[in-house]
C-alpha cells in the first residue's frame, strides 16, 4: 500500500498503545486500580487536542499573513479535529471521574475550564458556519481562533494550577510528574500521545483534501 510513512507509524503506535496499554504491569494505586490505564487514552486525548488546536492557531496566523485559502481550510479542519478530541476527552474523563471520585461531574477548575474551552470552540464552528462570504469567513474565524486559543491556555493550563483540585496536575507546577508516571506508564504514555496525534493528523489531512476538491468543483 502506498501511504505516507507517518500513517504507518501512527497505525503501529496505535496497536502498541492498545496491546501494551492493557498488558504492561502498572503501579498499584488505591482507588484508581487498573483504571490508571486510562492515562493512555483519556490523557492522550487532551494532548492530541492541544497539538491539533495549536497547529490550527499557527495556520490561522499564517492565513492572516498570506491570505491563502488553503491555510484557512487547514486551520479550520485542525480545529474540528481538536474539538473531536476535546469532546472525547471530556466524555472519557467523566466516566473515569464517576468510578474514582464518585460523580460524573464535579465543580472543579480543571473540569469546568475544559467545558468552557469546548464551548468557546463550538462557537468557532458556529461562527464559521454563519458567514457566507469565503474571505470574510476566513479572516473573522482566523482572528476568533487566536482569541479562542488564548483563552484555552489559561483555562486548561494556568488556572487549574493556581487552585487545588481533585484532578491530577493541579495546584503547583506538575511538569509531567504529578500524573504518577512511573517508567512503565511513560513507556506507553508518550507513544500513545504520538499515536492519537498522528491519527488526528491523518483524519484532518483527509478532510483538508476533501475540502480542496470541493473548492475546485465550486471554482
Amino acid at each position: 500500500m502506498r501511504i505516507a510513512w507517518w500513517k504507518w507509524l501512527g497505525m503501529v503506535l496505535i496497536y502498541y498503545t492498545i496491546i501494551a496499554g492493557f498488558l504492561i504491569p502498572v503501579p498499584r494505586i488505591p482507588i484508581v486500580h487498573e483504571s490508571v490505564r486510562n492515562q493512555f487514552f483519556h490523557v492522550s486525548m487532551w494532548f492530541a487536542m492541544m497539538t491539533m488546536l495549536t497547529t490550527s492557531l499557527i495556520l490561522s496566523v499564517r492565513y492572516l499573513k498570506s491570505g491563502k485559502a488553503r491555510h484557512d481550510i487547514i486551520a479550520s479542519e485542525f480545529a474540528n479535529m481538536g474539538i473531536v478530541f476535546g469532546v472525547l476527552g471530556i466524555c472519557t474523563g467523566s466516566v473515569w471521574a464517576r468510578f474514582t471520585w464518585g460523580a460524573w461531574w464535579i465543580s472543579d477548575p480543571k473540569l469546568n475550564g475544559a467545558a468552557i474551552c469546548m464551548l468557546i470552540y463550538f462557537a468557532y464552528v458556529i461562527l464559521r458556519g454563519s458567514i457566507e462570504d469565503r474571505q470574510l469567513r476566513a479572516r473573522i474565524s482566523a482572528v476568533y481562533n487566536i482569541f479562542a486559543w488564548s483563552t484555552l491556555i489559561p483555562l486548561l493550563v494556568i488556572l487549574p494550577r493556581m487552585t487545588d483540585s481533585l484532578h491530577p496536575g493541579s495546584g503547583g507546577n506538575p511538569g509531567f510528574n504529578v500524573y504518577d508516571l512511573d517508567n512503565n506508564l511513560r513507556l506507553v504514555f508518550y507513544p500513545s500521545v504520538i499515536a492519537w496525534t498522528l491519527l488526528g493528523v491523518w483524519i484532518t489531512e483527509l478532510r483538508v483534501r476533501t475540502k480542496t476538491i470541493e473548492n475546485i468543483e465550486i471554482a
Partner: protein
Amino acid sequence: MTRITLFLQMLLLIPGLAMAQTAGQEVEMADLLRSSGKIYVVVTVLTIIMTGLLIYLVSLDRKLSKLEKKLTEKSPS
C-alpha cells in the same frame, strides 16, 4: 470423492477423541486467551476494532487519491 468424505469424517472424530481422553481429569484449558482474567480477549477485540477502523481510513485515503488523480487529469491546472 470417497477419500474426501473419509477425511471429513476423521476430522469430525478428532474432537470426540480428544474429549474422551480428557474426561475425568481437570479440564485445563489455559491457553493464552484465557489467562490473566481474560484481559487478552479485550485486547483482541480492541485490536480487531482498530484494524477495522484503520482499514476504513486507508480505503478512504485511497479513494481520495483516485479522485484527486481524476481531477488533475480532467483539468491540468
